[in-house]
């Protein structure tokens, strides 16, 4: 991207204009996320900076919104529900999704495109439609307003991510390795656990992470399929923003940003590990 020595003046001006434009767009992307952090320490119950905050007076800042988050029954219930629902839906979707990906990536799988299309349809259909359909059907069979209902719904929404990530890992999979194991006398089960699993485990873990995030971050379906007793963190945030805006939401948002930063770092490390194992070093 560096300018060549022979660049003309117009080219130079254009180049710096372009860099400025890019900087502004990056600012647009990141500024709304950074702004949350200081606002979550606002001593006043507003969603805005007070003049005391701008003058950095210590009494303009407070950690009481974090305390409220940690002590309020509403939020604690939401945290508990979020983890329970995300945990079980991740288990279900990772297990079923990995099995299906193993089947789908076999070379002689019949009707592959159609079945793949149906399996990833929960990712394609707009959430409001999934939510509407699930609400109608789950209330008919008595699953609406139950933890099981929300877990099943989230598992259904998350499976496409597992299928896609694990299938992607398996496309680089060398099938002669399993044949080699078989020729050396290993049973299919033994081969699976000692040859296939170690090779696809990064894909399974990132698929599971995607599944976890999908459930943890999902709000539309839980609003319809769940009720107050199944409230998750996003559910509580949504109703909080609608009813009374309190900086507690900003405190929760800050914690969620921290979680996504941690996830981002983790995924990056996973990616580097895979590349290293495959002998591709990042430049």
């Amino acid at each position, binding site marked *: 991207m560096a300018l060549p020595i022979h660049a003309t003046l117009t080219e130079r001006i254009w180049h710096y204009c372009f860099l400025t434009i890019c900087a502004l767009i990056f600012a647009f992307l990141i500024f709304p996320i950074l702004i949350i952090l200081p606002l979550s320490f606002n001593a006043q119950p507003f969603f805005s900076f007070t003049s005391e905050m701008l003058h950095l007076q210590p009494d303009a800042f407070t950690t009481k919104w974090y305390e409220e988050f940690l002590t309020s029954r509403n939020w604690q219930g939401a945290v508990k529900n979020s983890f329970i629902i995300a945990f079980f839906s991740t288990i279900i979707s990772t297990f079923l999704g990995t099995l299906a990906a193993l089947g789908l990536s076999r070379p002689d799988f019949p009707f592959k495109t159609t079945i793949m299309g149906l399996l990833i349809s929960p990712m394609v259909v707009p959430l409001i439609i999934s939510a509407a359909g699930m609400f109608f059907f789950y209330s008919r069979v008595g699953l609406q307003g139950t933890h099981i209902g929300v877990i099943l719904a989230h598992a259904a929404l998350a499976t496409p991510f597992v299928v896609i990530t694990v299938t992607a890992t398996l496309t680089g999979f060398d099938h002669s390795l399993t044949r080699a194991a078989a020729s050396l006398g290993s049973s299919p089960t033994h081969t699976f656990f000692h040859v296939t699993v170690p090779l696809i485990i990064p894909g399974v873990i990132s698929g599971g992470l995607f599944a976890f995030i999908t459930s943890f971050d999902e709000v539309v379906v839980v609003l319809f399929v769940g009720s107050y007793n199944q409230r998750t963190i996003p559910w509580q945030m949504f109703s909080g923003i609608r009813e009374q805006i309190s900086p507690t939401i900003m405190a929760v948002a800050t914690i969620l940003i921290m979680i996504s930063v941690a996830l981002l770092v983790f995924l990056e490390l996973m990616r580097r590990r895979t590349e290293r194992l495959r002998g591709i070093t990042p*430049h």
Partner: protein
Amino acid sequence: MANAEAEVITTADGVPLKESLKKALWQRKKTALLLVAPLFLFVLITFLIPIFDMLIRSVDNSIAGEQFPGVVVEIRNWDLDSTELPNEATFQALVDDFKVGAKEKTISRLGRRLNYEQSGMSGLFRKTARKIKKLEVTESPMAAMIAIDKKWGNIDTWRLIKRESGKYSSSYYLAAFDAEKNSDGSFSMKSEDRRVYVSLFWRTIRLSFTITFLTIILGYPIAYLLSTVKTKTSNMLIILVLLPFWTSLLVRTSSWIALLQKEGVINDILVGIGLIGDDNRLAMIHNETGTIIAMTHILLPFMVLPLFSVMKTIPPSWVRAARSMGATPFTAFVRVYLPNTVAGIGAGGILVFILAIGYYITPALVGGTKGTLISNFIAYHISTSLNWGLAAALGTILLLLVLALYILYDKVVGINNMKLG
């Protein structure tokens, strides 16, 4: 080697090789299918059947047969063009059905259902259900019912019942397109002031287009930058794209509320530097502007990532070659670089459009009344107005729209090439 038996090659067990191979292949196919079967069943039960259930619900009218079992049979003999009321037998069936329905307290549901078609029906059903218990039919059920409410003597009431007596009804779709059935069975558009949904669909499509266009305008430069800098730098810069991508949607929406509201950060800055007065702060939220800004921010990573992956594959030597042969930077860009990125623009554009057209949360929180989309009305009919049939019909139309776009996406990119993060 020339004898007849040797021509059929067999395995060690004496089975012909061809059959043995077929069997082995079938075995492998079966294993593959068995691996996929659990997930397929799971998605079928938890997702596909509910969606199908919604499609059925959008045309379902079984409530008429449930609440009016006698009336729907008798009214078959009555003609929609008839200028006379139905016969006494129909009225007798009406009395009987009402007596059962009033006792079980379910008849008002049908009243509510018919009220969607013609206001006043809900009241008529409630009133009749109250009075029917004391009704003793002497000789003319017709006269007795008209005595309860004159509307039972109105031919339009009966035309409505006749029209909505089938097992299936198109009336939810008509409502979703702002049309209605006239009493003679023909269709017409609703009066100007009662039209809601056609303009809502257009608004949804218009806003989705605007948002898609903005994400292309904003996404293109940074994707270009990311693809031309050193890998080390681009790995750092892409975090600025991935962090919003991984951050909860509600976090980003609430931060836009903090930024855009009347007492919010942007208005404070503008007032602070004296660009606008304190009394005419900009209204940037709870309207279309709010929806557009917040959704552009939320969907921008979905544009940058596919564009970036396409731009990475374009060798910089192509543009250099064009320049060396005398093309101006502008010509080289428009004639060489841009055409090579069209696939990325198409992929990102359709993806953003599909996501935007079905968005619910952000418009619900920052859209006010002017910036809401079709999905907000689906939610409204599910949880507030309880007109589930209309919600299902609107949902089905939206679903068809998205599926059409999805097929287009498949043609441009191919679903098997879908990548994440």
